[in-house]
């Protein structure tokens, strides 16, 4: 179990992470979802003993990360957001060295693991190519492979599929799930909705260094009012009369960002004509209407007041 207790990290005058409290269960995949700069990387690097928290406490399996950094390090493997690989080395050497430092495997076992993981991600043929000559996607795979080969008790992936093509993304997700199935606790930071939703057992929404919500994706969506979302595009620069929609009991919430209005509702299909009629009567020009199921995108918008992109 990993516990964040009002953890905070301040860089100069900036609170990258603030009063952050959450618990990560054993053998779950926890997705940290948030836009760039939300504080995801900082959170994970504090847990990984690279950054020292400036306030609060973080414990990993009962061990405080500041008091017992060496014991904590033994349990964790981190695949960084920007690959941290020695450019002059090939993928094989990068991974082999990583395992040398993080496991007690003998040479044969180690090389066997490296080979398996490189074959799995289709990098075996390129195993001796210097990583600085690789494409961003290949390098990212090598970075992810460090942790996939290490198979630590706690596996951290920081935006594991950035730069990857679609088949590689799916494969990476599959391998990360396998890691969990074998008993690792997995933490995945991402700014991609689909990744958070499809990969995670639970999602923690992070915004401006703070925890906004945490739950299983389905629960988060369920909590987000009713289960349906009506997206309206209204005429530019128009004042939007919120109250004429909130009068309906099925309308749970209304939010507006520029000319995009999001209406969270239950039983939306029946209400749709009424809403359009009401707004038209109030002189609101409606450019487009779109009714859909709630997605994590809406959850995010609902909690933070802005879109993820």
């Amino acid at each position: 179990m990993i516990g964040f207790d009002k953890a905070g990290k301040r860089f100069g005058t900036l609170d990258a992470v603030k009063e952050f409290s959450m618990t990560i269960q054993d053998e779950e995949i926890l997705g940290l979802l948030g836009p760039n700069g939300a504080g995801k990387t900082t959170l994970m690097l504090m847990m990984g003993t690279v950054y020292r928290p400036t306030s609060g406490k973080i414990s990993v399996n009962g061990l405080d990360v500041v008091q017992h950094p060496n014991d904590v390090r033994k349990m964790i493997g981190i695949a960084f957001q920007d690959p941290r690989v020695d450019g002059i080395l090939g993928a094989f050497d990068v991974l082999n060295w990583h395992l040398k430092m993080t496991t007690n495997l003998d040479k044969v076992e180690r090389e066997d693991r490296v080979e398996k993981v490189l074959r799995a991600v289709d990098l075996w043929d390129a195993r001796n190519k210097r990583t600085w000559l690789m494409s961003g996607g290949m390098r990212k795979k090598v970075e992810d492979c460090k942790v996939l080969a290490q198979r630590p008790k706690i596996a951290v992936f920081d935006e594991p599929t950035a730069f990857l093509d679609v088949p590689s993304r799916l494969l990476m997700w599959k391998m990360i799930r396998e890691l969990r199935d074998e008993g690792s606790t997995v933490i995945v930071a991402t700014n991609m909705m689909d990744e958070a939703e499809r990969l995670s057992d639970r999602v923690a929404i992070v915004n401006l260094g703070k925890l906004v919500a945490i739950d299983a994706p389905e629960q988060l969506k369920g909590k987000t009012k009713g289960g349906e979302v009506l997206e309206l595009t209204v005429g530019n620069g128009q004042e939007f009369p919120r109250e004429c929609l909130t009068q309906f009991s099925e309308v749970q919430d209304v939010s507006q960002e520029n000319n995009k209005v999001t209406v969270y509702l239950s039983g939306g299909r029946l209400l749709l004509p009424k809403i359009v009629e009401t707004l038209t009567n109030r002189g609101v020009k409606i450019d487009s209407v779109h009714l859909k199921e709630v997605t994590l995108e809406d959850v995010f918008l609902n909690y933070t007041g802005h879109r993820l992109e």
Partner: protein
Amino acid sequence: MSSSTIQVTDSSDLSGQSTSRLVLQMARRDISTLFRTPWIIISRSLAFIIQLFVFAYLISGLVVKFPGFFPYYAVGSVVSVVASISFIIGYDIFEEAEEGLLDYLLTLPIPRREFIIGRALGGAVRAMIYTIPMFAIVAVLENFSNSLSLMAAILDLFLLAFGVTGLSITVAVSVRSANRFDVVLALLELAVSRASTALYPLAFMPSYVAALAPFSPVTFAADSTRAALSGSSLDILGLAGLLAFVAIFLGLGATFYFRRLEGGVYA
């Protein structure tokens, strides 16, 4: 892939990771970094030999006042090489922090103290490995008297390497801006090896350089290496100076580095 047969690494698996093994792994990493580009080493060794034979013969012919200048210069050249290779570790460490590779190294299960010791050791050892062939040539030219004097000379060089490594690490972790770091380290390197008796005796130097030279660690090393190789008595003063230099800068470097790593100042 048949990953389902692979077991998750249990933390207890790592209890067997002995500390000394990790120190050696870190040291090995720094050593291999230097030797990754063999052509640099080969070309520098060649340059060394050419410089030694051509340049030094010319000079020693000209400097009539100082007939033993060639062997003097030869030993000093080796000492200078040890110093300048030892300085490189600072650049490596600075670059690593800039590139973020350090963050990765810091997630590895190696205690910070062992991490630092490993690096200082690696920095010093690689300077020695690099210099050994040149040293061998010079030792032969010098007609070294016995194996004991050879050992003493190697000890002098190693102490210099260790101390300069510490000095270089100290600068690398205390100067923040990349531009300033390059300048500071380059100036230090210049001061330490030029204002020394490595290549010229005190009497041949301009007075302001001669005033500084007796305090340079390169002077200590050059003088005591010459004393050792020529089989004359042990240069106690030089050895003591070297030891003090090592103690001070290795201590400072390790302390500063440790603070920065554990304090998360690299953050």
